[in-house]
């Protein structure tokens, strides 16, 4: 701990650390008085039942406070259905039909999905709806998506920079670009017209820190870093990215005391980064394991002050292969943070950090991060009873359901 002047950032950081330290030491005390492994496991508990109740009742209806998310209802469906899929709970067939009907009404006839019925189509709810559909992998929902209209929508959103706009006459940034690629991949409508210069666009968003910003020169940030990392994976093209500085940046965003991730250097831990940052590690592990020798294979990233070749060992990095990224970080510490500090064990759901209130967004990204962390090392914190279904880190969808969905759409004819 630096012993000099305490800046504002440092004060805030210390407050959060103290809260987490108290929780961990009280749990340690509890654990010490346990007489068996079974008892220990009870202390380190994933409260499946209350989470399930919270999610299921939310899927039905939401309190007035959610009016501020009235332009993001497909997101809410995704957060809930994604969470349920990881807990291995399936909504009833009648709910599947209701979701299908709802997405149909959110879909614009010219393509793309809006935040609610009749709203302007927008790449973010489009991404969310596709992901909710893939999380459930129910044909009745799959049928709703108009592939050729969606393709036309994506083409309209394509920007000369290689990126995409979020909606007609809307902002161009790395989120929109990732959303477009992810949707196109799942619906089997990816084409050269869509991916033209997209790898360059991602490269232009990487900063000197190693992470990605929302637009060129913007500060490296966890959410945008996920979009860049997963986006390049979708393109299978990291030639414009310095993967060594990217890996170093992400690995250093895990907090020593708390165990969770921060979104930016010198900011506070937040459970949602368990996924945004956490997912980058298994993605990069795959990448580094595959990387063969040769200069320029992984990027020099000459733009934007992030130049310098990745330290290439000349052969695939076996240390990384198949580890789920465990070689780079502490998956067990992340699990501990989420289970001990972020769960609302009374009414279900997860929170950003104590003492904040839980919400559906943090619930999903906590469960997603938890699933990745469980797969990222030898330990499922608290025992096998806490094990969640496996999540695909590139799309943020339960792995087996994603595969089923990809199989369904890849059998369909081309639309481009």
């Amino acid at each position, binding site marked *: 701990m630096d012993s000099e002047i305490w800046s504002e950032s440092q004060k805030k950081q210390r407050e959060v650390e103290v809260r987490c330290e108290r929780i961990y030491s009280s749990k340690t005390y509890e654990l010490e008085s346990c007489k068996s492994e079974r008892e220990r496991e009870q202390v380190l508990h994933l409260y499946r039942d209350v989470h399930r109740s919270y999610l299921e009742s939310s899927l039905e209806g939401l309190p007035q406070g959610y009016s501020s998310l009235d332009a993001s209802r497909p997101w809410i469906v995704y957060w809930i259905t994604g969470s349920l899929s990881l807990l291995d709970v399936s909504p009833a067939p009648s709910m599947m039909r209701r979701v299908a009907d709802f997405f149909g009404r959110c879909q614009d006839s010219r393509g793309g999905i809006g935040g609610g019925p009749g709203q302007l189509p927008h790449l973010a709810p489009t991404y969310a709806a596709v992901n909710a559909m893939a999380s459930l992998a129910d044909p009745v929902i799959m049928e709703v998506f108009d592939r050729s209209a969606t393709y036309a929508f994506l083409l309209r959103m394509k920007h000369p920079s290689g990126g995409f706009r979020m909606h007609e006459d809307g902002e161009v940034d790395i989120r929109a670009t990732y959303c477009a690629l992810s949707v196109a991949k799942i619906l089997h409508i990816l084409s050269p017209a869509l991916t033209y210069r997209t790898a360059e666009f991602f490269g232009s968003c990487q900063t000197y820190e190693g992470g990605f910003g*929302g637009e060129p020169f913007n*500060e490296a940030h966890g959410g945008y870093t996920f979009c860049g990392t997963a986006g390049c994976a979708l393109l299978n093209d990291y030639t414009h990215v310095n993967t060594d500085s990217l890996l170093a940046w992400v690995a250093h965003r895990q907090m020593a005391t708390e165990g969770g991730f921060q979104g930016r250097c010198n900011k506070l831990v937040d459970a949602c980064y368990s996924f945004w940052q956490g997912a980058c590690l298994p993605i990069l592990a795959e990448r580094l394991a595959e990387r063969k020798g040769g200069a320029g294979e992984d990027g020099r990233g000459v733009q934007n002050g992030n130049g310098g070749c990745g330290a290439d060992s000349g052969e695939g990095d076996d240390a990384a292969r198949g580890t789920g990224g465990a070689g780079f970080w502490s998956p067990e510490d992340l699990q501990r943070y989420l289970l001990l500090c972020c769960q609302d064990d009374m009414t279900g759901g997860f929170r950003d950090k104590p003492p904040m209130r839980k919400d559906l967004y943090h619930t999903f990204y906590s469960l997603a991060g938890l699933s990745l962390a469980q797969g990222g090392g030898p330990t499922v914190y608290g025992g096998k009873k806490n094990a969640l279904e496996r999540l695909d880190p590139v799309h943020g969808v339960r792995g087996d359901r994603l595969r089923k969905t990809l199989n369904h759409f890849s059998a369909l004819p081309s639309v481009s």
Partner: protein
Amino acid sequence: EKEKEKEKEKESMGDEEEIVFKDNPDWKDVVPLKQDDGPAPPVNIDYSEEFVEVMDYFRAIVKANEKSERALHLTRVVISINAANYTAWYYRRLILEALGADLRKELEMTDGIAAVSPKNYQLWYHRRWLVEKLADPAAEFDFTNSVFAGDSKNYHAWSHRQWVMGFFGLHKDGERMKKETDNIERLISTDLRNNSAWNYRFYLVQQQYAPDRVPDDVALGEVEFAWTYICRSPNNQSPWLFVKGYLDQHQEALHSTLQEKCEVFIQKHKFCSHPLALLVDIHEKRGTHEDIVLANEYCDKILSLPAMYQKNYWEFRKASISKKLEQ
């Protein structure tokens, strides 16, 4: 604080406080349009009556493609009940254009919204659109400063400021650059852990010389600037990342100097991982056999630090480097 913000929001709403459409003679001709939710929508929000009324009238106006003053007023009301309704913001822009509205007044209106919802994407995009149309960046520096006063790391505000500088070619404007440099120095000296400020400074200098490289002497100057803050707070990663950023782009000019600086630094600060990490990078990059041996040794030093956190990451780095030794 929140009270003041609510007041500001109400002020910017002007005489649009009265949210009444149903029994309002001015809206008599409009048939409100219900949300097409279907018989049993999931995630059914328990909207207030007022919310439903406003949205029903908005839907009707959009369907009729009406671009009038009253329609403009209605979009403002929708934004006030849900600032994230991007359809309303989009439609508002269409109306502003159709009416040839006073965009300066519109700009002032966004001041009020920023006070209440400074993290709203739609607000910032709208502001950018206005500034572009007005072709005038003058107000944007005070505007973003006022947002920073409440949150010195507001991502949208920093992004906006960068956009303004780039769009109006202000990196080549000496007077503006002086102001930006002074402002950033002040921010960093107030909170040396403000990573957003460090990032802004990095690209301020980059863009000043773009498309040319930053000259080596300037790069060295920037490194020296960062080093003063490194000495104050060795564990603060922001200036270390900044220095590494310059090293990556100016290997030739900086690697020896930085190696020396780090070697001196670790004599005094025996438990800090950052100079050791930089030494690993420098030696690994240089790549001779001796350098790789040193890089490997520095990895060991990092791994043996008492408060070592990124242990797995450094094990991985060491393994990578050790492989090079075998070759």
